[in-house]
C-alpha cells in the first residue's frame, strides 16, 4: 500500500493531469489503484467517471477534511496505491492528504510564482512530517517543460535547491488531449510517463511489481479489490 499525494499551493501546475497519468497508468499495469479527488472542482473524478477509457479504477470525490481522512484510511486498506489529488491553494483537505501520504509529488511549471509556491509546499510537507514525527518525502516534478527555452532552464535552476525528480513532463499536446479523450498518452509523452513511473519505483514510492486485480462495478464508482 502506498499513498501518493499530489499537492501544490499554486493553481495550474498540472496536479490533476499528473493524478490522471498515475492512476490510468497504474490501472493499465494491473496495479490496484484508487484515486481520491480532494479538489472542489472535481476535475479528476469527473474525468474518471465520464471520459476515462482505460482499465477502471476507483475514484471518489471528497473535499471535507474529516471525511477525506476517513476515506483515505478506508481506501488504503484495499488499494495497493492511493493517489490523492488536491486543490491548488492551502486548505485543510490538502494538508490532511499530505499528512496521510507516504510521499508527496509537487508538479511545477516554469514560472516565478510556481517556483515560490513549490518551495512553500515543500516546506509545508516538512512541517507536516515534523508534526507527524515521520519521514514524508516530497519531490518537485517539472511540468510543461520546453527544454530548448531559457525560461525552462532558468526555472529549473531556480528550483535547484528543492528536492526534484530527474524525470520531467514536457509541454506536449498529448497531455491535454488525455483530458478530453480519456486515453493514456503514447509516443514521447508515454515514454516520459514510463520514465517517471520507473523513477517512482526506484525511489520505493510505488510497489515494484503489479498484481492482477478484479473490478466490481458500483453505482457511480468502481471498487477495486486485489485478486487472491
Amino acid at each position, binding site marked *: *500500500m502506498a*499513498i501518493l499525494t499530489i499537492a501544490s499551493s499554486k493553481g495550474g501546475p498540472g496536479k490533476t493531469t499528473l493524478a490522471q497519468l498515475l492512476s490510468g497508468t497504474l490501472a493499465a499495469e494491473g496495479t490496484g489503484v484508487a484515486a481520491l479527488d*480532494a*479538489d*472542489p472542482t472535481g476535475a479528476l473524478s469527473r474525468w474518471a467517471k465520464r471520459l476515462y477509457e482505460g482499465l477502471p479504477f476507483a475514484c471518489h470525490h471528497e*473535499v*471535507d*477534511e*474529516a471525511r477525506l*481522512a*476517513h476515506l*483515505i*484510511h478506508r481506501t*488504503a*486498506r484495499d488499494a495497493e496505491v492511493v493517489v490523492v489529488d488536491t*486543490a491548488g491553494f*492551502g*486548505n*485543510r*483537505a*490538502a*494538508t*490532511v492528504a*499530505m*499528512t*496521510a501520504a507516504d510521499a508527496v509529488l509537487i508538479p511545477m511549471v516554469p514560472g516565478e510564482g510556481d517556483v515560490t509556491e513549490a518551495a512553500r509546499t515543500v516546506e*509545508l510537507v516538512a*512541517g*507536516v512530517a*515534523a*508534526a*507527524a514525527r515521520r519521514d514524508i518525502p516530497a519531490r518537485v516534478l517539472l511540468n510543461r517543460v520546453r527544454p530548448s527555452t531559457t525560461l525552462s532552464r532558468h526555472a529549473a535552476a531556480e528550483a535547484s535547491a528543492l528536492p526534484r525528480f530527474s524525470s520531467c513532463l514536457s509541454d506536449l499536446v498529448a497531455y491535454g488531449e488525455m483530458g478530453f479523450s480519456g486515453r493514456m498518452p503514447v509516443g514521447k509523452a508515454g515514454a516520459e510517463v514510463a520514465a517517471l513511473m520507473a523513477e517512482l519505483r526506484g525511489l520505493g514510492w510505488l510497489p515494484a511489481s503489479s*498484481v492482477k486485480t478484479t473490478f466490481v462495478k458500483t453505482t457511480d464508482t468502481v471498487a477495486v479489490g*486485489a485478486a*487472491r
Partner: protein
Amino acid sequence: MKGLKSTRAPAMAPEEMLRVAGVAAPRQPPAVVSVGSGKSVMISIRMTEQTAEALAACAIEHGVTQRRLVAEALAARGVAVAPRDLEDRPLPRRRGAR
C-alpha cells in the same frame, strides 16, 4: 498477492491525520466554505456583569450595536462570520418616534 500480507505499518488513523494537519497548518481554511442556511439563530453566552457593561459602553462609544461589535471581534480572530452579521440592521421604527 498470493495471500501474502504486507508488513508495512497501517495507514495513520483519521483522527491522527486531522490532529497532525491542525498542528502543522492551524490557520488553513477548509477546501469549501459552508454558507449555511442563512437562517438567524440565537447565541446566548453567560459572562460577568463587568464584561457586559464594558461591551455596552464600547458599543455606545463606537456607535454600533453590541452584536456587531462581537461579530467584528470574531471576524478579527479568523472566525468565518457571515457578512450579514457584520452590518448593523436599521433600528426598528417605534410608534411615536420621529
